[in-house]
């Protein structure tokens, strides 16, 4: 079985359309990030989380009404089915939590406390800083490694491609106001690794082809490299997306957003390594050529 076969797609020719498409998606995301911001979970914003399971069916409205008695009607309440609820509130102390739980028990039904999380604002602020450092550290390490193993040009292209993937994930999470938790940052960093992995496999092929195909145009060599790696790129995308989907559908509520972020990132990562990273190299090369020509012209005129 070989569903990619020997087909030779021209990825370089139509690159402008792809650039515009990506730019639009990213722009929408960035606009959302600027105007709506992120919905930070308690890991970053501080606050309390309570996951409870009632013995009898209950509704979000009922739970919200009771929280209203404690001035917490603005809390986020999520129904996980099976009478299970996740309630996110501002930071509350243990005494208040106890009172809330006892009122819930009295008015609705007996319940089991599955999970309690409380994070102070100081911890959250610290975490934002470390998250930023981690991402910067990863980016710098990667630029350094690719520069040493390949060329500086390749490392900039890789960083562009993976920024594209991360921005798409973060943009979508902002747009739909999905919660940003530590797990989501972990997912983004995993995508950083994954996106690179894909880009590098293609760049590696390009490095090899450039050596042997000196007569062909750069655009053609790039296109050939993408096509040669295509069946690997798609198969690996499938084998990595399959387990992520398994986590999403079977891994439970705690992991589902994490899996969703990974899924979006992997789709974006596969797409960007094929349609963005390699074609960008062609543009880079032609911009450089253009600049060289202009410099040559201007020096001639000068003489």
């Amino acid at each position, binding site marked *: 079985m070989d569903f990619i076969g020997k087909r030779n797609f021209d990825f370089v020719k139509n690159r402008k359309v792809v650039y515009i498409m990506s730019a639009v998606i990213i722009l929408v995301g960035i606009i959302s990030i600027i105007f709506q911001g992120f919905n930070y979970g308690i890991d970053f914003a501080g606050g309390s989380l309570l996951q409870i399971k009632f013995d009898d069916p209950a509704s979000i409205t009922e739970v919200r009404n009771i929280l209203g008695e404690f001035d917490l009607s603005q809390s986020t309440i999520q129904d996980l089915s099976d009478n299970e609820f996740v309630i996110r509130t501002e930071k509350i102390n243990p005494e208040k939590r106890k009172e809330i739980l006892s009122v819930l028990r009295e008015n609705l039904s007996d319940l089991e406390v599955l999970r309690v999380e*409380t994070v102070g604002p100081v911890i959250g602020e610290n975490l934002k800083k470390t998250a930023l450092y981690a991402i910067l550290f990863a980016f710098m390490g990667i630029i350094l*490694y690719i520069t040493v193993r390949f060329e500086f040009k390749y490392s900039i292209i890789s960083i562009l491609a993976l920024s594209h993937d991360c921005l798409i994930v973060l943009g979508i999470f902002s747009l739909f106001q999905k919660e940003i938790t530590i797990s989501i940052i972990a997912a983004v960093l995993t995508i950083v690794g994954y996106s690179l992995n894909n880009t590098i496999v293609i760049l590696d092929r390009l490095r090899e082809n450039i050596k042997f195909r000196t007569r062909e145009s750069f655009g053609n060599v790039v296109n050939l490299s993408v096509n040669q790696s295509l069946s690997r790129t798609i198969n690996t995308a499938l084998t990595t997306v399959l387990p992520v989907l398994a986590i999403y559908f079977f891994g439970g509520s*705690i992991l589902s957003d994490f899996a969703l972020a990974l899924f979006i990132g992997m789709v974006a990562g596969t797409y960007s390594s094929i349609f963005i990273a390699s074609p960008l190299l062609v543009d880079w090369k032609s911009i450089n050529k253009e600049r060289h020509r202009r410099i040559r012209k201007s020096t001639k005129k000068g003489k």
Partner: protein
Amino acid sequence: MNLNKTARIVSVFIVIAVAVIFAFPLDEKINLGLDLQGGSHVILECKDSPNALVDDDAVNRVLEVIRNRVDQLGVSEPVIQRQGSNRILVQLPGIDDPETAVDLIGKTALLEFKDEEGETLMTGAHLLNAKETFDQFGRPIITIEFDKTGATEFSKATSSNVGKVLAITLDDKEISAPVVQEPILDGQARITGSFTVDSAKQLALLLRSGSLPVKVEILENRSVGPSLGKDSIDKGIKAGLVGLILILVFMVVYYKKFGLIADFALMICMLIIIGALAGFKATLTLPGIAGMILTIGMAVDANILIFERIKEELKLGKTFRASIDAGFNKAFRTIFDANVTTLIAAVALLYFGTGAIRGFAVTLSIGILASMFTAIVVTKIILELLSVKAHSKILA
């Protein structure tokens, strides 16, 4: 890579054997994180108050008292650590009622005896013991016993208040307000109040372990009840099995016999990951399980790279043996570069991650290394063994 073939085969068997020894029996060897076995992760901060400032000595005494309380709770492998100048990390794995436990740990538990004017006459600093028991009506009460100094103080306090109320307060909340009938000289007293069996037990525990010299605030608390932990394990295993089966099937359908080899290598890879987790005494968390499932997908990637390369070489008309060698050599550098960059991201995560997320970074890193080993060594050996039989048709 010029090791002789037998040596390589032997080394693979040794690695597998070591992994098996480390990994089994699974439930004894694998260290479960708090999010999987249930328990609490708490960070406390000592706070200045008007009558007590936080200094080194105060933090050490807080540690001591918390250690006492945790001991009395009967937690099997607690972690109680000082972090920085005024923070304390407490981890209580496997407790049934995390909420009460966290509650008990953070309580100042300052016991005071006050006269009718609200003046503090003495504190519980000189308590020798406190026990929960029942009075003649079967109501839960607490008996306390003072040391010598305490007994003297207590006899003074009771002597000067005969016929009056001597209020007993805990953290400024009145728990009992008995009228002193006669001076108590032997330093033995009982606290009656509206206790339940549980609350009497908890109060006695707090009194026995002493009060905290300064106020502490809970900066962070992550507690998971035992049932959610078990549920997470079940769901993690289910997701893992589904993911694994999907990939095993995909590889066989797409790559036929080659897929079988990749599947075999994948199983060995999983075994090595579990063995390494157990061997390094790493903690398996829920994100860690996710990392392992993710690794399943990434592990076959190296095999896919190799197979695709071998296919290309075969199409060029090379012999099976030559194709394998050329395919491996060309794929090796790609696999190496691609995995190192993923590893860089995982290390960043290791540095940044706290608790459960660190578990994810650990399994991911181990997974990357194990998958490189199995693809480059195990898959190659199998292919070489097959090439002896010149089964060049297996790729068709």
